[in-house]
């Protein structure tokens, strides 16, 4: 079970985020759901790079080779995306604020009615 649990959790988090995004009645809530989807990728990446009994790949306090380490490549991918993802979330929220200003609603359904 432990062999696949992390992958299944990543899949669950992603699907739950997608469900929330599709059924959301508030654009700000939708952006929050997208942030949830995003975290699924971090869980998946770090799960792929984990090594049983491995320690973190930082050699500040032990000599290289003394202990096995987990995969640093996936960690590097995840860590930059955490910060960059936050700024993209900010951009989406800025768009939502503009929508609220111009159309006086945050409900995506009402927005599509307005357009017609």
């Amino acid at each position, binding site marked *: 079970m432990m062999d696949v649990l992390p992958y299944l*959790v990543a899949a669950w988090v992603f699907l739950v985020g997608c469900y929330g995004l599709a059924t959301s009645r508030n654009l700000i809530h939708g952006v929050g759901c997208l942030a949830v989807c995003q975290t699924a990728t971090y869980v998946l990446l770090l799960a792929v790079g984990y090594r049983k009994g491995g320690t973190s790949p930082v050699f500040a306090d032990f000599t290289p080779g003394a202990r096995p380490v987990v995969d640093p490549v996936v*960690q590097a991918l995840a860590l930059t995306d955490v910060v960059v993802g936050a700024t993209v979330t900010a951009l989406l929220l800025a768009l939502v604020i503009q929508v609220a200003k111009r159309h006086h609603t945050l409900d995506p359904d009402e927005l599509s009615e307005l357009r017609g």
Partner: protein
Amino acid sequence: MADVLIALALLLVAATATAAVAVRDPARQALVLSVLGLTLTLLFTVLQAPDVALSQLAVGSALTPLLILLSVRKARRRSLDQVRAEKEAEEGGT
């Protein structure tokens, strides 16, 4: 032992992620998202990824929820009555 910790952290993440989607009020969702940030930090720590955990701690538990709360506040500042009056004025004018 490590396996038990990882499994617990994973289930915690799955539960808080579900809660973050199920909570429909954005202001409350921001708080749940910050809890999700903390549980993710926990998970990344037990997965031996301190770099990512640090990043997640700073961003996920503080920055993103703060941005969401500020957006909610901006959106709520329009009082409903005035918005309605404005809409009617627009419809009457065009």
